[in-house]
C-alpha cells in the first residue's frame, strides 16, 4: 500500500516538474532546464513521450517472452500474461504515436512525416493490431494461445530490421537520430543534471505503473475466465 502512495507522489512530482519547470538559456537554479537549440519548449515532451515509447517496447518484449514460455510449457497462464502485456502495449503504442504526432506538428510542422521512428512505431502498431485480429478470429483457447504465440515470435524477429533499415532508407528528423546534427544525442549531454534526473524518475515511475497495471490486467483475465467457466457449467 505504501508503495502505491509513493508511486502516486513520484508521478505527481514528475508531471508537475516536467510541465512547470522553466527552460532558460543558462541554468542557475536547481529547477532550471537547459535550452536545447532546435527543441526549446518542445523538449519537455521527453518526460511523457519517451516513457510511453519505452513501455511499448517493454510490453512487446514481455509478450514475446511469455509466448515462448507458453510454447515450451503449454500453460495457459503464460498466455494470459502475454495477453495482458500486449493489451497495455497497444495502449502505450497509441499514446506514443499520438503524443509524437502532436509534438511533430509543433516541431516539424506536420503531424506525420514518415520519419524512421514514426515508421517503426507505425509498424509496431500494425503488429499489435494484427495480433489482436488473429486472437479474436480463433475460438479454441489453446489453439489461440499457440498460434498467437508463434505470430508474436515471428513479428518480434522483424523488429531489428526496423532499427537498422529505417534510418538508412529515410532521413531522420527525430531528436537522437544518427544524422540529427542540432539536437544530437539528447539524453547524453544536452540535458543537464536535473533534467536527466526527472527524465529517469519519470521512466522509473511509468515502468512501475506499467507492471502494476499488468498485474491487475493479468488477474482480471483469470477472473473473467473463471466466470465464463462457471457460466458454461450452469
Amino acid at each position, binding site marked *: 500500500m505504501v508503495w502505491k502512495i509513493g508511486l502516486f507522489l513520484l508521478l505527481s512530482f514528475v508531471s508537475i516538474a516536467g510541465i512547470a519547470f522553466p527552460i532558460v538559456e543558462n541554468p542557475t537554479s536547481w529547477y532550471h532546464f537547459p535550452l536545447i537549440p532546435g527543441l526549446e519548449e518542445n523538449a519537455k515532451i521527453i518526460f511523457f513521450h519517451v516513457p510511453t515509447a519505452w513501455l511499448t517496447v517493454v510490453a512487446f518484449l514481455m509478450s514475446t517472452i511469455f509466448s515462448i514460455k507458453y510454447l515450451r510449457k503449454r500453460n495457459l497462464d503464460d498466455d494470459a500474461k502475454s495477453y495482458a502485456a500486449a493489451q497495455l502495449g497497444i495502449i502505450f503504442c497509441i499514446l506514443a504515436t499520438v503524443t509524437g504526432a502532436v509534438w511533430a506538428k509543433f516541431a516539424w510542422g506536420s503531424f506525420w512525416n514518415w520519419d524512421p521512428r514514426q515508421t517503426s512505431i507505425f509498424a509496431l502498431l500494425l503488429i499489435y493490431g*494484427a495480433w489482436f*485480429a488473429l486472437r479474436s*478470429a*480463433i475460438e479454441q483457447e489453446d489453439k489461440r494461445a499457440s*498460434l498467437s504465440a508463434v505470430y508474436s515470435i515471428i513479428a518480434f524477429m522483424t523488429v531489428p530490421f526496423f532499427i537498422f533499415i529505417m534510418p538508412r532508407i529515410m532521413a531522420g528528423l527525430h531528436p537522437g537520430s544518427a544524422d540529427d546534427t542540432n539536437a544530437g544525442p539528447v539524453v547524453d549531454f544536452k540535458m543537464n543534471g536535473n533534467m536527466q534526473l526527472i527524465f529517469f524518475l519519470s521512466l522509473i515511475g511509468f515502468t512501475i505503473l506499467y507492471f502494476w497495471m499488468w498485474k491487475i490486467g493479468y488477474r482480471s483475465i483469470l477472473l473473467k475466465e473463471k466466470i465464463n467457466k462457471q457460466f458454461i457449467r450452469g
Partner: protein
Amino acid sequence: MKAYALFRKDLHSELRTRYAVNSLAMFIIVAISVILFSIGQERINENLTAGLYWVVIFFSAMSGLARAFVSEEERGTSLTLQLIASPSTVFSGKLIFNLALVFAMNTVISLLYAALFEGFVLQNFVLFLITFVLGNIGLAVSSTIIAAIIAKAGSKGTLYPVLSFPILLPLILTSVSLTLNSINGTSFEDSIFEIAIVACYDIIMISTSYMLFDFIWKD
C-alpha cells in the same frame, strides 16, 4: 526427396483444379490495369514506379499464396499429410510450391511492367536480378508460414494480408529502394547494405519458420 514429392503432388493438384493460378493471373491483370487507368497519360517518376511494382507484387501474393495450406485445411487433408510426412517435410514441400508460384508470378508481373510502364527501364540489370531473387525468397518464406497460421486459425481471406503486411514490411521497403536503385543505375557497391539486409531477412525468416512450424502444424 520427400519434399519434392510433396511439391509434385501439389503441382499436379494445382494443374487439375487451377485454384491459385487462375485467381493469381486475374489479380495481376486487374491490379496492373487499375494502375494504368489511374495514371492515364501521365509519366510517373521512378520512385512511384518502383513502389507500385511492389504494391502489385504484395497484393498478388496475398491473393494466391495462402492456398498452399488453406486448401489442405479446407478439404481436411492436413491429417493425411500429418500421417505421411514429418512437419519439416510438409513445410519444405509447401515452401517449394510457393517459391515456384512467386517466381512465376513475379516474372509475369515484371514482363508486363516492362512492356507497359515507360519509367520501368533498368539501368542496373544485375542489381535488379539479385533483388528479384532475394526478394522473392523472402516473400515466399514469410507468406508460407503466415499461410500456415491462417489455415489453422480457420479464417480464410481477410486476415492474411493483415498478418502478412507487418512481417513483410521491412522486406518490401528495402526491395523498393533496391528496385529504385536499379532503375537509377546506382552501382552494386552502393547498394550492398540493402542487399545484405534482404539476405539477412531471408535467412532469419527461413530459420524462424522451420523452428516454429511444428507448433502450428500439430494441434
